[in-house]
Every structure is written in C-alpha cells, then in structure tokens.
C-alpha cells in the first residue's frame, strides 16, 4: 500500500534537483481542455507533453490548459508560446504528434509547419 509518507522521500529527492534549475523565462505549452477538447483526446496529448518534456529535462517549459478557442472540429488544439510571446497553434493533435512537436519545435526551434492550423485547414 502506498502512503503519504512516501511523498517525503520524493520531496527530498526533488529538492536536490531543484537547486540546479534556472528561472529563466520559458516556453509555454497550452492545451485546450474544454468539452470539445476532452472528447477529442486532449488529455492523452497533455500527458504526452508532460512526459516528453520531463524525459528531455526541459526545465523552462510549462504545460497549462485553457478552454475552447473556437475551432472545435480541429481539436485537440495546442498552442505553443515562445519566450517572446510568439504563438504557434497546432491542431488535430495526437500523443505521437506531441512527441514530434517537443523534439522539433521546443528543443530544436523548428516549427512543425505541417501540423499548424494554417496547414491543416481543409484537410
């Protein structure tokens, strides 16, 4: 049986790692999580982002959620805001595409143009 006491162990471990982390302004990943997004599979997409970001130790990337932005037929929708506040909107996302976006866009800085709302419109 797991107990809350185990958390203390994890806390100590995490505290050691925390000191290494920097507080520089980072990239924001925003997943649309309203009824339309949830029904289309936004939750696994968000999970994929969190896992992939952790796997690659990207400490300056945060994952958050927002409501419906109005393109329900293209859900799951994910917006990536970079350090300068520039925004890229990805649509029809899947956990596999999320992995690709983390690697190509967030790590290497190359926008996955084919997955953006501009390219996917009419597909």
């Amino acid at each position, binding site marked *: *049986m*797991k107990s*809350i*006491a*185990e*958390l*203390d162990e*994890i*806390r100590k*471990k*995490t*505290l050691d790692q*925390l000191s290494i982390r920097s507080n520089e302004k980072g990239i924001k990943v925003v997943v649309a*999580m*309203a*009824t*339309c997004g*949830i*029904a289309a599979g936004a*939750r*696994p997409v*968000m*999970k994929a982002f*969190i*896992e992939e970001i*952790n796997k690659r130790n990207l400490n300056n990337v945060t*994952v*958050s*959620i927002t*409501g*419906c*932005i*109005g393109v*329900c037929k293209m859900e799951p929708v994910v917006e990536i805001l970079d350090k300068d506040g520039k925004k890229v909107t990805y649509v029809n996302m899947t956990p596999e595409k999320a992995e690709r976006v983390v690697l190509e866009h967030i790590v290497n800085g190359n926008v996955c143009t084919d997955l953006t709302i501009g390219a996917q419109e009419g597909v």
Partner: protein
Amino acid sequence: MRDLSLHILDMVQNSITAQATKIKINIAIDSQRDYLLLNISDNGAGMDSDILIKAQDPFFTSRKTRKVGLGIPLLKEAARKCNGNFNIISEKNGGTKIYAAFSINNIDRLPIGEIGETLIAAISSNPQISFILDLNSEKGFFRLDTDEVAKTLGDVSITEFDILIWLKEYIDEGIKNIFGGVLNEVDS
C-alpha cells in the same frame, strides 16, 4: 465521452472556470443495490435558478467562442441512458453540486476510465486549487486530499513530474482497492 473520468475532467473544468478554490469529487458504488454515484461539488461562483435551468440545455453556454455547451447535457445523457439519474444544485455565490447516478450492470453504463489521469491533468494545471477525491464502496474508503499532499511537500511544488506520477499511482491503487480488480471497469 468515452468514460466517466473524461466527464469528471469536463465538470472540473466548469468548476475552475467558476473560480472555485475547492473541488471535491466523490465516487461511491453499492454493488448490492447496483448503483454508482458520482458527486462533484465546488465552492465556485455558482448559478442563479435561471442559468441553472439553461445549463442543462445543450444550446446554452456562457462561452463566446461557440454556440453550444455540451458538458452538462452529455453527462446527464450518460446517466439517463443507463437507468440512472442526474441532478444539479447551485446557488449564486454558493457553489455547485452535481450528482449523477448510474446503474452499474446496465450495458450502456460508461466505464470508470483513468481517474488518475484526470486528477493529474487537473492538478498539474491548477496547483493552487484544493482537490479532494473520495472513493467509497463496501470494500472501504479512499481519500486523496491535495492540501494534505502540499503540506507534506513543503517547498516542493505538486506539479513536479515525480510527484504527479506518484499521485497517479496512488489514485490507481485506491481505485483498485475500493472498486475491485479491473482498473478500467467497476467490479460488480
């Protein structure tokens, strides 16, 4: 929606939009009487009686980005199609309570789904909100209280990856112990 956990996530989003600071999710089953009761309550802005009636209408939403609001109607439908029941109680500035009852053995009853995933999605994006998850059955009682977790963690944020993974495993174990062997189904 494919399962109850997705409905729960949707209802929690409503609570968050209503500026709730405390959200309580209670899932109880009684296999003898063949029912599953889902109860989600928050201390958010609440609704007056006029809005409350409209909230159950799929063509009503407070959103400006689209014309339909399907969250509550879909949950109501999910409950009613399996011989269940649905009720929503709310008061302006008095929070909102949602009750959905399901007949466990009805063929149309949705599986429980990944409650752990739902909780960590909600917690990681809103760490400032207190979440309580209660699970009840004849096999016992399980509770996760994020205030309690935060107290244990001290300066460490609940949104740390290792903590989220632990929370998910903790909840999954709770579901297994309280509701039975198969994770994605209510054991009856």
